[in-house]
């Protein structure tokens, strides 16, 4: 592994001191560095939220779009230029709430991207409302009587969708997270990595202490290719929370389909005029 970090960004970061997002940023840089990626061949795509600010805090290409809408542009970016390494850095609200529908269909398409969800079980940027992964009973200013809706289980969902790579991590373990991100990037097809990320300002329930007590690494005997076992594992949430690669599978990627069809448009290329002319005879 190289000891220099070409992804380092010199400017100011506006996250709260102690936020788990700093750790995830480090993990992403580490993963990309260990894969010898160049900043110019990487695109970080995000929506809006604290997590979604990450593209501004790294030296790489970035597409910082709309809240909930990171996955559709990521599809457009990657399908058009399949030589790019495309990472989506998103929040639990961004990815599972506002943009939930896109997640279903992005997995179905199986475009070759890696989606990193900073799951802090709260809306950080908008100052502490419940998110789709907040615990039942969590009291916020918009849920004064406590959250009633059942939390979304991204891991079980992703397994049900037969996602090629499904993992969970805990932001505090930077090396472990970096390794999962690296595996996600190396996976052909869609990779979902849900990262437990303490929000020190607004989530007083799911704190460092809370996660540290519960998170445990899956051991070597665990077989992530067994879908039924993986599903069973995905339901484990409470006193013990498994982290690591929970599910793996293989199927044709969107990229491969385009390759097979020979569809690979080039920037600034002109349409073939003689071919265009031949269309006239069809009218």
């Amino acid at each position, binding site marked *: 592994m190289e000891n220099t970090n070409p992804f380092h960004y010199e400017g100011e970061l506006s996250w709260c001191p102690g936020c788990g997002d700093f750790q995830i940023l480090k993990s992403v840089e580490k993963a990309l560095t260990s894969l010898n990626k160049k900043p110019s061949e990487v695109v970080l795509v995000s929506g809006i939220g604290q997590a979604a600010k990450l593209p501004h805090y790294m030296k790489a290409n970035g597409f910082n779009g709309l809240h909930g809408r990171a996955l559709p542009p990521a599809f457009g970016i990657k*399908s058009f230029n399949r030589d790019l390494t495309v990472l989506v850095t998103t929040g639990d609200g961004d990815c599972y709430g506002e943009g939930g529908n896109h997640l279903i269909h992005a997995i179905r398409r199986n475009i070759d991207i890696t989606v990193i969800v900073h799951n802090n079980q709260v809306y950080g940027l908008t100052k502490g409302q419940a998110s789709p992964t907040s615990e039942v009973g969590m009291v916020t200013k918009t849920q004064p009587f406590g959250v009633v809706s059942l939390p979304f289980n991204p891991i079980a969902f992703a397994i049900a969708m037969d996602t090629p790579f499904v993992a969970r991590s805990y932001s505090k373990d930077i090396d472990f997270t970096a390794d999962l991100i690296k595996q996600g990037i190396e996976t052909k097809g869609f990779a979902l990595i849900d990262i437990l990320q303490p929000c020190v300002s607004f989530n007083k329930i799911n704190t460092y202490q809370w996660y540290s007590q519960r998170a445990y690494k899956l051991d070597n005997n665990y077989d992530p290719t067994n879908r039924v076992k993986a599903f069973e594992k995905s339901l484990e949430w409470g006193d013990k929370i498994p982290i690591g690669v929970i599910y793996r599978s293989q199927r044709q990627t969107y990229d491969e389909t385009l390759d097979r*069809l020979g569809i690979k448009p080039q920037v*600034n290329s002109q349409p073939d005029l003689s071919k265009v002319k031949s269309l006239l005879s069809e009218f």
Partner: protein
Amino acid sequence: MSFDISIKIAGQAGQGIQSIAEILLKVLKLNGLHVFAYQDYMSRVRGGHNFMQVRISDSPVYSIKEDCNILVALDTNSVDVHRNEVPKGGAIIYDPHSTMVDSPDNRFIPIPMNNLAKEVGSPILSNTISAGSILALLDINKMDAEEFVKKQFAKKGEEVIEKNLKALERGYLYFLENFRSWKFTDIKAQKNNKLIMINGSEAVGFGAIAGGCQFIAAYPMSPSTGVFTYITGKAKEFNIISEQAEDEIAAINMALGASFSGARAMTTTSGGGLSLMAEGLSLAGVMEAPVVVVNAQRPGPATGLATRTGQEDLEYVLHIGHGEFPRFVFAPGHPEEAFYTTIHAFNLSDKYQVPAFILIDQYFADTYATAKEFDLNKVKAISSQPSAFSNDYKRYQITKSGVSPRAYPMQGDFTFIADSHEHTENGHITEDGEVRNKMVEKRFRKLKGMQKEFGKPTYYYGDKLVPSSFKKGKAKTVFLAWGSNYGVVRETVDYLKKQKRSVAMLHFNRIYPFPRKEAIAFLKGAKEIITVENNYQGQFGNILKAETGIEVDGKILKYDGRPFTVEYILKRI
């Protein structure tokens, strides 16, 4: 114009109206005749009442007529609904075994289409039988029709060709054997007149391909789907990525992603879908991402009249997307113009890095018209993206023209960010008031250049189209039209000219940036300005007033979901 014939083919959905029309239209086109065809259909796959209107002439035709010379009634209801539209001397073709007619007069021509079809092999051939009879009635050479049938069914094999040829002949001869004395009109083929026949959707789709479209994401919605399917049908051949998105929000955001990667990207939709795209369009505005958006209008609000026509989204498209940002809005008047406009839209969206809207409508999308072969050398796909950058590249560099050099990833060793927030020249989030002002002003500086680009209004003054330099000989009454009303207003002008009235049409193909100078020059001195629009409020008239201070004197409006006719306009002058 030595002849001008209108045909209506009416029946239920699923009865083959389109198959009959297709044979008819293509054979007429091969004969060098001008045709114009519009389909009026209900939002259902089977049953209901639908009809196709076909107008034929030896000179170009631009609109439909309310009455028809020939009615082909495929069911009893069609006879009841349309028989009064056929004047004396006209023809009503029907199948006496399936269609009940009360007191048929000498307009009625019974052709036992079903029985004849069974005779030659199968009831599904009855459409070809009808086409044969109509062609005989029009006195079109049978051999031309046969040649077409051979081509049309070539892919389906010898047997299908054989059967259809038989059916065509049977229909043709049955008419001659039984109604030979029926002299309809003299139609002279003009074989050396090389024409193409294209509908509005195909013209936009074809224009997109010629304009270098490389990426399309869309969600199906009438009446926009035709453009999407046309392009997708050619995607492999022309190296285009085409994806059906999960919704219109995804569609526009996918297109913006592709645009970021350097693609010429587009999306197609109709009103409801456009509403879902609003935030994405605003993103295109701040990111300065080129994207072409085709909005095929239908009457709203909400689901409105799903399969019918309207021009209700004009003001919406001028303002859609929160915040302020420049855009192009085009509204082509006929298929040929739509083809060139779409190529321009791609080039200009790319050059100024703004969204470009193309406004069409159901009437425009589904209308077939003949046209001279498009000149593919007239407008070409031209990219304005520079080819090299230094390593201190700034995506949002402040420039005099307002346009910053646009790069795509991996074009060099540099990196850049496209950002939804207000940003610095480097694309990073900023809340600095001064930077903010500079960025807003930079984005709006583009308008100066945009104003000078393609899209001057067309002044139509009788037989000739007058270019924008036109100064003299202005008409007293000027009709304003935009988008699909080009044809019907043009024919209204032709009609009134014959009555020695001083009239003209001013048609707007580009609505934003508004061609203010030209509008004022053309309208100065007019005694009466009348706007003709498919909406309730006369939206274009309002925009004209806001942009130029000129107030219209009259509005001829229609919002029943059906297109204008010359007759309709004349009644309201």
